[in-house]
């Protein structure tokens, strides 16, 4: 079987969606760890040095572009499968079973994923674009000059509507990963009584609750600091 055939069946595409999805799960851990330095009470030194490292280190740059390609691939394949799935039932049921036969989260993957994609675009425009191509003040630590992204973040989150938007984005992340994380394992064929409990626990508590809450805390805390 050729590689092109392997990845072109419904299961082949799902394998790609699952693999890219798990890569993105690993990314959110790294991203949150770095971003939490925004809450450090050091006037932004730790965060600005971290931001400079992330935008200059060649290896990180390579990963960052790979990350963007993976997001696009994940979204395109998932949408393609979703449209195909919708088309598989041309006449809809008058009555649907709702939560009687499946979890609500498992049926909202495309909606939550779309909310997340829109959020990511807004988020990239807000800070990634600003860091790379925008006009930022500079600040000096130990004789070296750094872009002051920290103060730009603090300025941005004075706006309540932006804080609300970020919290909505993180609700999208949470609901997407509650099902998405464990679903990827099932797609890889990893369904085993010995590990299912752990996979489910990590999916719900780490990716569904801890990480989204960790992200959402940042704009909320900054907002309350500003008022």
């Amino acid at each position, binding site marked *: 079987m050729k590689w092109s055939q392997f990845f072109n*069946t419904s299961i082949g595409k799902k394998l790609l969606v699952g693999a890219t999805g798990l890569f993105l799960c690993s990314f959110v851990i790294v991203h949150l760890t770095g971003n939490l330095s925004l809450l450090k009470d050091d006037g932004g030194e730790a965060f600005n040095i971290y931001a400079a490292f992330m935008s200059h280190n060649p290896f990180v740059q390579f990963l960052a572009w790979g990350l963007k390609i993976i997001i696009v691939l994940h979204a395109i394949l998932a949408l393609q499968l979703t449209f195909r*799935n*919708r088309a*598989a039932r041309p006449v809809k*049921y*008058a009555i649907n*079973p709702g939560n009687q036969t499946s979890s609500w989260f498992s049926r909202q993957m495309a909606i939550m994923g779309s909310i997340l994609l829109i959020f990511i675009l807004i988020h990239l425009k807000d800070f990634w674009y600003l860091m790379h191509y925008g006009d930022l003040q500079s600040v000096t630590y130990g004789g070296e000059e750094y872009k002051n992204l920290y103060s730009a973040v603090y300025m941005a989150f004075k706006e309540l509507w932006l804080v609300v938007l970020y919290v909505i984005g993180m609700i999208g992340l949470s609901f997407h990963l509650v099902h998405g994380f464990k679903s990827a394992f099932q797609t890889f*064929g990893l369904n085993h009584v010995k590990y299912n409990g752990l996979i489910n626990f990590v999916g719900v508590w780490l990716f569904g609750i801890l990480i989204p809450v960790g992200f959402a805390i940042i704009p909320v805390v900054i907002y309350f600091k500003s008022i």
Partner: protein
Amino acid sequence: MEHYTMNLTLKVWRQKNTDAQGKFETYPVSGISSEMSFLEMFDVLNERLINEGKEPIAFDHDCREGICGACSMHINGRAHGPWAGTTTCQLHMRAFKDGDTVTVEPWRAGSFPVVKDLTVDRGAFDRIIEAGGYVSVNTGNAQDANNILVPKDKADAAFAAAACIGCGACVAACKNSSAMLFVSAKVSQLALLPQGQPEKKSRALNMIAQMDKEGFGSCTNTGACEAECPKEISLTNIARLNREYIAAGLSYEK
């Protein structure tokens, strides 16, 4: 359980043929015994329609003992009605109470076109089986029963998968009209046994190719199929099908 009779309002999907536009018709039915099966309730209604000179409602049924998989009815939003692990013929009217409105629809999937009323064409499943759901056996004397050793746990798992009656409830229940539970059961029952090994790779790849060709959706692991399957086929079979696909797809030379 105490016997009672009930009056119901039935909303049934009526469709003249595959190409016709279908619509719901409302039928009041009265004096229905709680000990009747759901299909017997339909028999009562059809008897009345015939006596009134009207067209009876077409629905599939055969064994009426829960093993043939013919009775495809989507009842109040549930494949085979509200009871778990039950076919429509084994659903008894005590699942309903006097005055209930019961909506009955055919399986809804592009790959299962409506033939008439509640009858759908499940030929897509036959074509998937033809694509690889078999073992090739030479004719001649049968060999000794214990020549091929099968571990008990494997035999049990294969038997549980083989319990699939091909009724199509998994497709009907899935929001994506995915046939993965059916295909996974049919692949698993052979992949788990020594006799299924020689054609293991081509079987998984060919059956999945046919499944895609028939226009079934893909699996998003919602678990609705497992919840509705009258034979309670497990989602672990879908994981096994995925493993079979990965193993075959990465190593099959053709």
